[in-house]
């Protein structure tokens, strides 16, 4: 946080100024100066106070906003965690209750569901840890040279079309994290797609970079949500009310990972015809190949 945004510092500064001014005015009144100079001086001092006062209010607003977004986040996350937690609780209490005397097949089915719920919680917590690493600026990327094409093909399912040119060069980035970014983008594209809408991925070589682009045929992103899309904990208006999944940190993490890798990330919403998300990653340079 910049020092000009710190209310305590501003208060200290203002108090020091007031003391200084009291001393000056005291001095001047003893030695009697020309009245118009005194007027100008007072005007200047008043203007300074005004600016400092404004900054104080502004910094308080900033603080309040940050704290509000934090508490909103806590409430979203606890609700998100609660869904799998109560699902696990319910299934366990059913299995453990002798009254129901479930057969082995049913128990197995419930255990598999419990396993999925548990997996969901683990992923959510991993995302939270990633956010905290981003915030602390302690994110350490494990860079290596790998084929974005192979990685993409490893992740996508059959119903997603992937197109790419022959001989596409390797990129230099954190493979595990880029994998998560791609999973996230695919997940979003599928989730917000309309029934039967297609999702397609395109890889393209650009000067110094490889561009990954994913297209869906969903509802697109509403005008008011556009600005906020990469913001932490932001979820579209409709998502909050109708969808249980998604904590609103996926794209925030994606943006930070891509930026830290020296790439760019962006999107286009094609009014009612779906959205396009893309990111670029630097192509492996000759000297980086030797390291690997």
């Amino acid at each position, binding site marked *: 946080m910049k020092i000009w945004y710190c209310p305590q510092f501003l208060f200290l500064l203002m108090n020091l100024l007031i003391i200084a001014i009291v001393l000056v005015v005291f001095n001047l009144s003893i030695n009697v100066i020309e009245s118009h100079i005194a007027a100008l001086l007072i005007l200047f001092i008043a203007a300074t106070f005004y600016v400092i006062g404004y900054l104080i209010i502004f910094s308080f607003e900033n603080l309040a906003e940050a704290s509000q977004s934090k508490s909103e986040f806590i*409430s979203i996350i606890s*609700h998100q965690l*609660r*869904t799998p937690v*109560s*699902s696990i609780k*319910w299934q366990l*209490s059913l299995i453990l209750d002798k009254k129901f005397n479930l057969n082995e097949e049913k128990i197995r089915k419930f255990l598999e569901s419990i396993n999925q719920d548990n997996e969901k919680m683990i992923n959510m917590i991993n995302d939270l840890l990633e956010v905290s690493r981003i915030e602390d600026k302690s994110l350490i990327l494990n860079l290596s040279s790998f084929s974005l094409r192979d990685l993409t093909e490893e992740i996508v399912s059959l119903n997603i079309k992937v197109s790419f040119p022959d001989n596409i060069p390797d990129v230099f980035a954190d493979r595990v994290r880029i994998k998560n970014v791609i999973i996230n983008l695919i997940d979003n594209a599928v989730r917000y797609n309309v029934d039967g809408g297609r999702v397609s991925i395109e890889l393209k070589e650009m000067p110094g970079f490889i561009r990954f682009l994913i297209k869906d045929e969903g509802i697109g992103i509403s005008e008011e949500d556009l600005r906020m899309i990469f913001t932490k904990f932001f979820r579209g208006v409709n998502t909050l009310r109708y*969808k*249980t999944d998604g904590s609103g940190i996926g794209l925030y993490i994606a943006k930070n990972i891509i930026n830290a890798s020296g790439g760019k990330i962006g999107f286009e919403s094609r009014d009612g015809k779906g959205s396009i998300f893309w990111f670029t990653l630097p192509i492996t340079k000759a000297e980086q190949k030797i390291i690997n």
Partner: protein
Amino acid sequence: MKKKILIIEDEAHLQDVFKEIFESEGYEYVFAYDGETGIKMAENESPDFIILDLILPKKDGFEVLQELKNNPKTSKIPMAVLSNLEGSHDVERVLSLGVSNYFIKSHYTPQEISEKIKKIMGE
């Protein structure tokens, strides 16, 4: 006659739990995965009881509640809201829409919920 319960809930795992419980209690049951289907089923299936989640695809639980209460065919069906939302704002909204049974999923076991439903239906 067997009592019929309509469950409007999008979590497949919770539906499986309800299935077991209501089968053992000897109830008939129907499921709706989203709010829109839920409203239709409430009209067509004439259930004796409705269990409603609040965060639902297509139409959320508040919208469902409003429509069910405004429709003379469904307004008299006893209901319980079963959700993980527990903000006072959400609870008040449900109460103001005329439903006094509000249960937080993670506070109860399914057996307890089933007992409560039995009581509400007057059995």
